[in-house]
């Protein structure tokens, strides 16, 4: 797991969300920005584009349709102040105490991390209740949704030794591993297994291989042996094409 990351810009997608989604960077970028026109890649054009490049990050992930509906072309994106954090310390699956609001003092487990806004969702706590009204003689329903909590001051990690909230620090062990340590008791708080979970698999070994996936044995097989030839020369030998004509010299300019 990559723990060393820097959220340098408030416009960028967080590293943890990328890790969870397992999507290529180019796709996230493509789905986020709504560009209407881009100048062609030719020397007589400067690199310009027309369209919307920023979006407002919310609980909806930036590549989904919901976020596209929120950020249409002609909506203004407000400036959102996000406190920069050097080392992210709360992960999915952590036990956490809420310090603010209606559920103050209750403990719960983190379901989701929204790194772009320094937010965290705690399971079955800090809920908002909304009623969907009657429509076409259908019965009305009540929906409960978790509301986000700020990582920096609205939530704190729990020390496993006495189950009370504590402040933490990142330190190195003798073996060189980077670990979280609670300042009060000096105990290591291990990173939960749920933090490694992604959209496609729970753990790597339990991943189900799909129809169009190359198996692990084929990928990790070494077949390359260096020879004094280029890629094309090697293939010509293998296919069995012989060529004697030598190209005449040219001027490059």
């Amino acid at each position, binding site marked *: 797991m990559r723990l060393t990351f820097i959220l*340098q810009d408030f416009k960028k997608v967080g590293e943890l969300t990328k890790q969870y989604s*397992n*999507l*290529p960077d*180019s*796709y996230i970028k*493509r789905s986020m920005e709504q560009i209407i026109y881009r100048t062609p890649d030719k*020397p007589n054009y400067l690199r310009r584009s027309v369209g919307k490049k920023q979006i407002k990050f919310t609980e909806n992930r930036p*590549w989904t349709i919901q976020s596209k509906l929120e950020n249409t072309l002609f909506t203004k994106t407000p*400036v959102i*102040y996000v*406190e*920069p*954090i*050097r080392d992210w310390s709360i992960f999915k699956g952590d036990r956490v105490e809420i310090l603010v609001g209606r559920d103050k003092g209750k403990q719960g487990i983190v379901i989701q991390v929204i790194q772009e806004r320094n937010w965290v969702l705690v399971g079955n706590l800090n809920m908002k209740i909304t009623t969907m009204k009657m429509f076409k003689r259908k019965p009305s329903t009540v929906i409960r949704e978790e509301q986000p909590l700020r990582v*920096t*001051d609205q939530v704190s990690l729990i020390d496993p030794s006495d189950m009370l909230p504590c402040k933490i620090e990142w330190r190195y062990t003798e073996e060189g591993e980077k670990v979280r340590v609670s300042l009060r008791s000096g105990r290591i708080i291990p990173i939960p297994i749920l933090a490694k979970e992604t959209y*496609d698999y729970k753990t790597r070994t339990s991943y189900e*291989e*799909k*129809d*169009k*996936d*190359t198996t692990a044995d084929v*990928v*990790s*097989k*070494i*077949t*390359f*042996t260096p020879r*004094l*030839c*280029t*890629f*094309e020369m*090697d*293939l010509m030998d*293998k296919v069995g094409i012989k060529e004697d004509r030598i190209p*005449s010299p*040219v*001027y*490059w*300019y």
Partner: protein
Amino acid sequence: MQMKLYIQAYYKFNPFLSNCIRSHFGPLLNSPNFASFCTTRERFNKNLMEFFEDKKNWGKDEIRSGRSWKTDELRIKSNEDLHKLWYILLKEKNMLLTMEHFYKENYILFPSPERIDKVEESMKNLETVVRERNKAYYMLETGEDGERPGVMVHNAIGLPMYHKQEQHDIPKYENIQWKKNNVHEFDYEECREFLKLYREKIRKEDNYRRKKNNRYVKGLLKRFKNVDIDYLKEIYPDVNVDQYKNHDFQIGHWEV
């Protein structure tokens, strides 16, 4: 065997006599050796249907797939394997593009479009590995990198531009036509005013960005009490953070 070859040759040069041949040598033609010359409807449909996805996946909301190939994984593979993989990826890309168009025409969302990016990424990685190998050979034997060269030159207006060089059969000083079309020199006195304004534009943009950062840092200090100031200085080196740290109107509602 001779009979087969004879029919093959005959059929090859007279494709429109197929009916006559089929009536006589029908069972022979259906053998696998004749597959390349077979003109039944099934045969062609099969090959063209490679442009489409498997029919069992049609109309699904989501089609799961693995990740793209990394450069480190491709560096292990031999040239022959890379050659084969390229064509597999190319076929997959063509299939995805046709399916994307196909769904678009029917007004339905294309399921999991990130597959296109995955395939393109692995094609890009494969190309870099091939280029590395070619470069190693050329640098060892000839001392040059064997690729198409390019140079940074100045435009006729005076702006820097990357020129990708081309092959020619006559030297540069003889080629008058090329000189007319490609001007890589500029008169400084003529372009002076334009360049002055262009520089001003860049500096104005920089200034705008700096001011924006300043405003943002002010806002951060106003809202959050325990900001990591050393880290803030690292991220925004242009902004004078100490100036805003203890400013009067930046202090928030909390007790000092």
